């Protein structure tokens, strides 16, 4: 998350705030044993993969390299301090991943760090890892080997039972015939009312379950990754070259729309940069596995922007207007018309990181929809996330909550406490 680090450098208080928030929300649940998985996903997953190096190093087994067992607490609580203090291991890490310095998490308790480490060490790769490293994508439906065993045994036993039952019934009938007792005519199972009823009920339940699930999913587009008119790689821009998210998405702090930049914003840099020279380090490959020529994509941009790369000037019409057209970007994150979402509320006021909803955007060559963007997903976050109650003077009007915090009845105020799960916060 280099882009974020830039953001960090520019707005140090912003990140401190976010992590305070994270940690506050964690302490909220600290009456139970710390949940390593949740902690990892909330705090670490945007930079770390347990198994492989990402923005930060792979964490599984990292504990074996520590100079001392409690080294990690110092490191997590104050990474840059450790580097500055000349700690050898810290500097080795820094050299490997520089210029990115790990964010400090001073509020993570030792127990919580232990829980994270334990989770990471126990972590196993899912059956099929998503290509783009989407750590929080829906869990793959993997089945353990024994399941197959149990299933086949059950099936065999079932078949056996049926055979035995048929044999038993046949013998019984033969015996009855022999004794001259009246024999009930056997109704085949496919015409037996009882079994038909059972089957119908089963089918109805299963179909109902499937329909309801499918219906809930209508209009949801998690993991949607359309082909864009220009192969624009966020990884190259925000990841490798560490351009601040807000440089292009300048609306995120001011408006409800984060805003896709217009071509003149691209041209601020691309007047100079007309070739993709990073192919050696990072080959651009699209979802189908085709290799993409970055330089050609920049030429495509020039076409939209109305830039003549030969003359190094804009093509203009008679009135002097630049002959630019907007690339027909495909919108990935679609909310229904009845949902009001405001970026500035989340980015500026809530100081939420972009990655929290958009995933590891700086790792994506092609952007896909990371979060489900479902109402349940929104609401859950509003329930768990605390507002910046002390930092933002707006909340000073909540006299009752101020009082409760003073009395120690509350630790913090979640978005939900402030009315964040009421209908007309998002629907009007």
């Amino acid at each position, binding site marked *: 998350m280099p882009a974020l680090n830039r953001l960090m450098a520019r707005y140090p208080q912003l990140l401190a705030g976010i992590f305070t928030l994270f940690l506050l929300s964690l302490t909220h649940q600290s009456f139970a044993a710390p949940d390593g998985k949740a902690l990892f996903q909330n705090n670490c997953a945007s930079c770390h993969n347990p198994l492989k190096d990402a923005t930060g190093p792979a964490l599984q087994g990292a504990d074996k390299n520590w100079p001392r067992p409690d080294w990690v607490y110092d490191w997590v609580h104050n990474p840059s301090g450790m580097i500055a203090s000349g700690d050898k291991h810290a500097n080795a890490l820094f050299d490997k991943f520089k210029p990115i310095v790990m964010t400090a998490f001073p509020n993570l308790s030792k127990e919580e760090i232990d829980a994270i480490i334990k989770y990471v060490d126990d972590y196993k790769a899912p059956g099929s890892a998503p290509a783009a490293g989407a750590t929080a994508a829906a869990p793959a439906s993997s089945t353990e080997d024994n399941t197959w065993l149990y299933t086949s045994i059950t099936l065999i036993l079932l078949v056996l039972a049926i055979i035995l039952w048929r044999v038993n019934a046949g013998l019984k009938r033969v015996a009855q015939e022999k004794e001259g007792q009246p024999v009930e005519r056997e109704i085949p199972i496919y015409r037996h009312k009882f079994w038909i009823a059972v089957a119908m009920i089963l089918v109805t339940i299963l179909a109902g379950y499937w329909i309801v699930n499918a219906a809930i999913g209508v209009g949801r587009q998690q993991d949607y990754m359309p082909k864009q008119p220009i192969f624009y790689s966020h990884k190259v821009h925000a990841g490798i070259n560490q351009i601040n998210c807000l440089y292009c998405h300048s609306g995120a702090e001011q408006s409800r729309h984060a805003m896709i930049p*217009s071509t003149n914003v691209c041209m601020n840099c691309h007047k100079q940069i007309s070739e993709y020279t990073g192919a050696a380090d990072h080959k651009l490959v699209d979802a189908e596995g085709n290799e993409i020529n970055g330089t050609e994509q920049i030429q495509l941009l020039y076409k939209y922007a109305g830039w003549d790369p030969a003359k190094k000037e804009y093509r203009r019409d008679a009135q002097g207007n630049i002959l630019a057209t907007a690339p027909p970007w495909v919108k990935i994150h679609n909310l229904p018309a009845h949902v009001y979402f405001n970026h500035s509320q989340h980015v500026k006021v809530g100081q939420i990181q972009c990655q929290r909803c958009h995933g590891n955007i700086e790792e994506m060559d092609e952007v896909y929809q990371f979060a489900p963007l479902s109402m349940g997903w929104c609401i859950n976050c509003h329930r768990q996330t605390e507002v910046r109650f002390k930092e933002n003077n*707006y909340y000073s009007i909540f006299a009752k909550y101020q009082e409760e915090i003073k009395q120690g009845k509350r630790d913090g105020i979640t978005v939900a406490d402030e009315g964040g799960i009421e209908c007309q*916060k998002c629907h009007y």
Partner: protein
Amino acid sequence: MSQNKYWKGIEELENTPAYQKSVADEFPAELPFSDVSEGMLSATTPRRDFLKYLGFSTAAAMLAASCEMPVRKAITYAIKPDEIMPGVPNWYASSFVDGGDYCAILVKTREGRPIKIEGNELSSITRGGTSARVQASVLSLYDNARIRQPYADGKPVDMFEKIDREVMAGLSSGKPAVLLTATLLSPTVKAVIDQFIAKYPTARHIVFDPISYSGMLLANEASYGKRALPSYHFDKAKTIVSIGADFLGTWLSPVEFAKGYAAGRKMSAQKLEMSRHYQFEGLHSLTGANADVRATCKPSEYGAVAVALYNAVMAGTAPSFASKKLNDSIVKAAEDLKKGNGMVVCGSNDVQVQTVVNAINAAINANGTTINWAVNSNYKQGIDADMVNLVAAMKAGQVGTLIMHGVNPAYEYYDGAAFTEALKSVPVSLSMSDHLDETATASKFILPDHHFLESWGDAEPKTGYFSLMQPSIAPLFKTRSLADSLLTWAGATTTYADFWKDYWLKKLGSQSAFDQALQDGVVEPGLTNFSSSLIPTAGALRAATPNDTAVIRSTVPAVRLEMTMSGASFAGNVSAAIAGIAGMKSSGSELALYEKVAIGRGGSWSNNPWMLEMPDPITKATWDNYVCISPAMAKKLDAGDLDMELTTHNEINHSRRVIRLTVNGKSLELPTVVVPGMHNDVVAVALGYGRVKSIGRAGGEVGKNAYPFMTWNGTTFGMAQGDVKIEKTDKRYDIAQTQTHHSYEGRAIIHEYTLDDFSKNPKELLEDRFGEFHHFAHLPWEEHGDGAAQKAALIAAGMSEVGAEAASFEAAYRKNGTLYGVYDSPGIHWGMSIDLNSCIGCGACVIGCQSENNVAVVGKSKVLMAQEMFWMNIDRYFAGNPDDPDTIQTVFQPMLCQHCDNAPCENVCPVSATNHSSEGLNQMAYNRCIGTKYCANNCPYKVRRFNWMDWDDADCFADNLYEDGHRETMDENLTRMVLNPDVVVRSRGVMEKCSFCVQRLQDAKLVAKKAGRPMQDGEAKTACQTACPTDAIVFGNVNDKSSAIFGMRYRDQPERTYYVLEELHTMANVSYLSKVRNNDLIVAGKPETDIIMDKSI
């Protein structure tokens, strides 16, 4: 509690069976139930069919649902303009100008398109007020019927040049040219006209105002030596006498006057004084409805009333009209006027009548105290004789070129047919109309002008008080401004925009002063210094972000630089005028023409769906014009004919008998609407209807044109004439009235006092409330001492003594009056207060709400079925004896969702689509609503509206859109541009209602959160509040002790505060201030008039 009796219509007063039925059926639509006693199979929808359809639709829905999601494109700006941030509105200060009508405005634009108009508080003329028309003007911008390119000989042409060539040839032909315009307020356009006339010396500029004030202009010239209109200061007047002038609705400058009028009517227990308003009129106007004392007379008697008033003022002579109320009222008015600070205004366009009015004003020293001759009003400049002479000259072939702008004489001139005929004798005729109206279609060329929201411009509504106009959108169509055309024809090479900028740069002295003026929108004496110190950086063409605007608007100083006042010495010939008036007599019934608050003279308003559907303040009728007659006249006509139909003045039966009015050989057939308060010998018809079909889909061929009934007396046009023959026809016609929709069934929801009664015991209302609810507020087993300590704490928190009493009572009632829990509002608790004294019923709030919240227009046939969608209605109640117009008193009560903290609608929703927020809002989640309508049934205030149809193409089904072939719908790209992108367009089958403009509240909170500070009072304002020209609505956070709403309820006005239907323990968040009339008697409290209601309910 006092059960004052008010009625919305005579049907309610008489409580007819049809009325009772309509009240019982909230949604008067037949349900498609058929008789199933014959067996289900033979029913129209048998069970098997039903199951088949059910199966099919389920399968179809599954198929549709399994389709792929559409691919949506995100098209950015190719090159984003710096000043536009998508999603953030830009505000531009500009001016609303329509003929001589003026309002200083702020235009809210989103992504470069204007979507909302607000008043500009920096203007000392309109002071942030707006009218319904100003609010609706943004819809006229996106009118589908606007002309999209120039026309020559009835055919569209692509180039201006061809027309320019022919017009210039005509201008140079030597034959006189005439530029015919409505009153022009723009100094720069006048300068351009001078330049034009310098180039073509034979050209003349003639001003034609269809609603003419030349009687006043000429009388003022004779009386004071100035052909001008003064400034009226209604705020300074202690006594206001209006003789037929509808100064709150349509007369001269209603927004300005309403602002001043309301200022003089704001009173409280601490300030026990208010102006007294006498109204003498023939029809029932909006202004008359607000009067303290109202007496009726025929319009032809306005002169006689003025003379009687003059005599009473000068010599104490008692008037001798047949009506006792009229005589008494004139005597009282004269007494009050003599006390000083009086003002007399008159709606007559007769020079002699206006001369007498001037004489009265001079006699009571109004000039210099309430009428200001130092600052002229420029709203109307037309002299009628000029127009009449022009038509004669045209007919005689003396006019070579006629250029028309802002006028439509073929329709608006009293003899439109003669004008059209004369137009044929003009070789080069050119109309600059924006619609294919009656004159444009008869003209050789049409060169449409920009809409004012697309134009550069300015206005000088009062001499020395300027207002700038800047475009908030590039011209949508191939149009050209009047000034640009004139400059082109005059051979100038500059554009008007440059000319305009040079003019103002020169006038203002510097670029920074120019930028400042453009940002302020107004250039007024004493304003520039103030604003430049207020706003640190003068942004070039931008007004301000909403945040800045809020700051600007909340810091407009309470004390303005006072307008310089001066009087004028009267030198008119009163005796000649009186002698002239003595000759004005009319016999029989009289026909009075009037302007509707919504439609006015006609113009583009005739095709504005918001204006057409806006219920008229008095008749509550939509979409049509009609003949207003008094109940007594209806009965009288009936008796002569022994036909009971004409007296179906019960509004339940909307099929009305059409009657034929014949005057001077001209006749007109229109349906009747019975209006209590009309003079018993007067019928009234509104102007502005009966337009040609090409004016547009909404307004074409709606109603009838009444302009031919205007009169010409040799000097001025008149709007009334006598000897009307009234006949019944066989025809019937539906009139869609909203007045009896959403009934309260006679419950006491209005409290009204005379000023004297209120002064004697300001706490009467409060005591009534305490008395009625005491039992519920204080439980017998609960200890309640004197609560002195608690009261002291409340007073320390900023309440008045009475306020503390009210607050502790309300708290106790809230807690103990219910079994439900009490809602907690830890941060904000929104509340609204509506002052019934200030509300004049003009309807600006209704249209402001419609514009802000994408409220649908439903069309006449659906209004007839009570399916109108207004989130806010202004309920109009009458009190008094319908047969005696002089007893009628009218009260307006704005009614919107009361946002009850204990809301009856919330409990009955089966899916919890409507529920409560921690900020006291009654929320409505449209996407959750399944349309049971239980909530609407259970709402005691009747403010919920159901989407019976897909009005505005909200859903994805193409064929679902409701279409009546008449209503302009929001299904086209052009009209959809007016929609507010922050508010969802509701689809068919869901309930909707007032949201307290939650999008604005959320925005205000967000602005404060981003700045990291608590929200300030006044940052969050609802659309109805900002639209209101009289500041009747106060809105804010009741939890904030420093807020205006808190002050209103618990400090300044606890005595007058009440909640509608408080006895239901709904704990409404909208409070009302009781109405106080400055007169001797509240009719509604009188046993004689209450008897009828007591009997019925």
